[in-house]
């Protein structure tokens, strides 16, 4: 029995290790691919000399330090944030269709950004702050609905879908009254694309992940217990309402930050948890990090695929995520579908 358990731990540890290797490989390949066709030695040279006093800067340096590197890392971090957020949500809402996007958090964030743009926000940070504020507002509403009205997990998801449609409608309204110049900015901001990645955003997202992942892992056994059902979890002494609130706030933070960084990329948060569950089951000590790493791998691979498919033009990563991710997802679900 103990040997079997140790074997399981080893297997899960091995999966995490292999995924980490795959992420590093994908991220490196992503970094070395691009229309500028820089050689490996040139990339390495620029990578090892981050600081330069040239003014103006060399174009290759800007390509490496402002485009390639932040975008490759952003794909990994956003994927991880969405994978983790989706995993937690599917557990606390007890619903396999839950994802940060089902709850309307991303639409709320997109609306917040668009509103700031229409009102003539002066700086990029005002736009990000507004996006973040509206995502938190949506999360707060969900939390209040879930806890005050003591609604079931299914009803919370329904309320989330209602939020999606509401914020979507508001977004269309804004697009209707926006000048062409602003409209173009809104479309560009919302579109799921790594083009807006930069170092301050990477730092912000890293900080949010560094905060949320340990907190989620600290709740891991409670979340695992919650999978047995709300009553069983309550009988184990778990305050389900508070657990759900903590978890939803983490999700809001992760999703809002991700949307602020790259716009709406919808597929990762839904799919990564399913793949993670297939790989290592319901033990949340492994399920949560595996889902985060799956998200990171899928988005990084999608970013790479986008460059390989259309080398000249920038294919928005959101397009590829679905195109590449769906077949993989279907293969996994169908292969094991009978067991589910």
């Amino acid at each position: 029995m103990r040997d079997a358990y140790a074997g399981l731990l080893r297997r899960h540890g091995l999966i995490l290790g292999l995924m980490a290797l795959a992420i590093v490989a994908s991220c490196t390949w992503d970094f070395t691919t691009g229309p500028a066709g820089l050689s490996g030695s040139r990339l390495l040279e620029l990578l090892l000399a981050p600081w330069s006093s040239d003014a103006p800067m060399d174009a290759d340096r800007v390509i490496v330090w402002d485009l390639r590197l932040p975008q490759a890392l952003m794909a990994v971090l956003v994927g991880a944030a969405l994978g983790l957020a989706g995993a937690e949500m599917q557990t606390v809402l007890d619903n396999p269709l839950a994802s940060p996007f089902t709850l309307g958090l991303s639409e709320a964030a997109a609306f917040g950004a668009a509103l700031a743009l229409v009102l003539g926000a002066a700086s990029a940070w005002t736009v990000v702050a507004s996006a973040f504020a509206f995502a938190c507002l949506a999360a707060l509403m969900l939390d209040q609905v879930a806890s005050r009205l003591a609604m079931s997990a299914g009803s919370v998801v329904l309320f989330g879908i209602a939020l999606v449609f509401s914020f979507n409608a508001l977004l269309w309204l804004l697009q209707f009254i926006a000048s062409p110049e602003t409209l173009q900015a809104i479309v560009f901001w919302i579109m799921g694309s790594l083009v807006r990645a930069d170092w301050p955003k990477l730092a912000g997202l890293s900080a949010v992940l560094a905060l949320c992942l340990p907190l989620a892992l600290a709740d891991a056994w409670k979340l695992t217990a919650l999978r047995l059902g709300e009553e069983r979890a309550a009988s184990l002494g778990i305050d389900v309402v508070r657990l759900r609130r903590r978890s939803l706030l983490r999700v809001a933070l992760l999703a809002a930050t991700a949307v602020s960084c790259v716009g709406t990329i919808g597929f990762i948060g839904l799919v990564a948890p399913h793949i993670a569950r297939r790989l290592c089951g319901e033990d949340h000590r492994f399920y949560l990090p595996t889902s985060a790493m799956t998200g990171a791998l899928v988005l990084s691979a999608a970013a790479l695929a986008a460059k390989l498919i259309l080398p000249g033009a920038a294919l928005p990563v959101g397009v590829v995520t679905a195109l590449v991710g769906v077949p993989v997802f279907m293969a996994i679900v169908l292969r094991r579908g009978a067991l589910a």
Partner: protein
Amino acid sequence: MMSIEISRRHWLLATLMAPASVRAQSVTDLAGRSVQLPKRVERIVLGEGRQLYTLALLEDPPLARVVGWQGDMASFDPQTYQQYRARFPQMDGIAKIGGTSEASVSPEKVLSLRPDLAIFSISGHGPGRRNPLVEQLQKIGVPVLFIDFREHPLRNTIPSLRLLGQALGREARAEKFIAFYEAQTRRVTELTRDIPWAQRPRVLLDARAGDVAGVLTAGRGSFGELIEMAGGRNAGADLIPTPLGEASLEAVMAAKPEVYIASGYQHPTASAAGLRLGAQVSEALARESLLQVVKRRPEIASLPAVRSGHVHGVWHHFYNTPYHVVMLQAMAQWLHPERMAGVDPQATWLQMHRDFLGMAPTGRYWISA
């Protein structure tokens, strides 16, 4: 609007060193940004391929210094693209920075071209003002100049032309075209300026008629400004708050427009529905497509404008180039034929091609049913 500070020292250098493109000056572009124009421009990136229409007025050969552009010219106006390609085969060698939209523009491609000037539009299909590419270009010392013919042609056309003239070192040519543009505009506005509001016909602009669902029309700005200059009342101005946008079909019908003007850009052999106008489109083909566009939609066919036979069509890309001065004359003539008897848009069109574009136009660019 523009602050031009020509450093005396560089000015002297410029006059001494002869080539037209040596100078250093700071200008304010149409996005309200202060731009330090480069002393020498050899490598230009265009945000949209269709900026060629304007560039060709100032540059000869028009694409000699362009190293990167989007594919919108080849997709949206293939006949004109082919015409230029026949004259300048090297055009195929210009790098594509994207397809036909801002989302498709690859910043890495743009940076790797190492341009020394980027020309973007404040709205449209290319990189916008908030695109991080603008800042990245500035980091490598590439000035980004924003121009506009699309959003507010009335106030932005001449400043945009003047900026391009300065940036490209083609001031004299730009001023020559501006003089032509102003003179041709004045021929219309002198005659329309004092037309009382009540005598101005209500005009509906049906942009990309038959090729988009619904009614895309001009509100405040874009085609709408030119309609009012031509002595009309833009019906769309009361319907939508933006320069271009979708209007309710019912509101369009309720507005009872007295003159209907469609815009379109389909090429002669296009499979898509819509108005055929532009290079190589014959008069018969253009008129037939205009009649089809109207006939296919009963709501449009029922408008007073259509029943009374006031149906016209204009080339859609007029909305993004100073060529629109010719459209202005054509529209003024449709709206006030008796006043505009002395204005000949076709002659203006031919003169513009002869004096500025160095080629003869082919095809119909405006048409009446």
